[in-house]
């Protein structure tokens, strides 16, 4: 099983996990960490601690970040590139991506590439664009 860590600017990560619980129940392999007004240094320390613990417990950690290029993403990338354990990063998380990732993390923990392929396939149709232009 993979661990899943959700991280964001502010409370989005907490809300995603709590909203996810409403739909899919409590997931034991999920944790979250938010970058708040305490700043980057505090965040970075807590992140490292959490990832170290999760890496010990699971075969690897999938990190879900809110925004590519945002500080949480940059800090996660730094740790992923320097630490020895297995990790994967997905940026731009939303509820469907979160739910699907958690599902995959439990049901098949082979390699990350396979998981990514599966995620791409299952999440690409989860955003719908509908417009309703009414005639004058």
């Amino acid at each position, binding site marked *: 099983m993979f661990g899943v860590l959700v991280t964001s*600017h502010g409370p989005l990560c907490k809300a995603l996990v709590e909203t996810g619980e409403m739909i899919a129940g409590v997931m034991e392999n999920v944790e979250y960490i938010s970058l708040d007004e305490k700043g980057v240094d505090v965040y970075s320390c807590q992140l490292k601690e959490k990832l170290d613990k999760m890496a010990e417990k699971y075969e690897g950690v999938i990190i879900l970040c809110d925004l*590519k*290029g*945002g*500080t949480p993403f940059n800090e996660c990338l*730094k740790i992923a*590139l*320097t630490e020895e354990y297995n990790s994967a990063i997905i940026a731009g998380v939303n509820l469907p991506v979160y739910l699907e990732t958690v599902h995959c993390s439990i049901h098949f923990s082979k390699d990350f590439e396979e998981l990514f392929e599966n995620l791409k396939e299952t999440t690409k149709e989860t955003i719908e664009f509908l417009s309703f232009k009414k005639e004058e």
Partner: protein
Amino acid sequence: MPITFVRIDDRVIHGQVVARWSRFRPCDGILVVDDKIAHDPLQKKIFINAAPAGVKVGVFTVKESVERIKKAAESKRNYFIIVKSPVTLKNLLEQGADFGPDINVGPLSARSDTKTVAKNVSITEEEKKAFDYLFENGKNIQFQLIPDEQPISWSKIKANY
């Protein structure tokens, strides 16, 4: 006007740049100018990966940047320049780089030898002198974290030091 934005920001490329500034000013590429990052493969990789969608990031030393900025200014693409400190812009200016008249200042975090002069902006004596140098050389320096905020000029910020 190929250099469309010059920013001092000690977090370099992060949410404010990716989600806001690069959507408010034309941006095809970001030149990160910083000797330390340019010599650190890990940091370099992180900021190259932090690029907003459709934007390329290059990391260069001050010395390399003089020529790079000239090339960028002559190209058809629109470039942002991001540095971590006003001292870097002072060095660029002294070495003859032409990055235009406007400078935006984003977050500069508090360190042991800094004074806080604005929301999320703390500067050292050396950085204060560098801002003065840039100001004396005709630069329009505005402190503004995100486009939605009102900019505050260096002359006003300076009074808080």
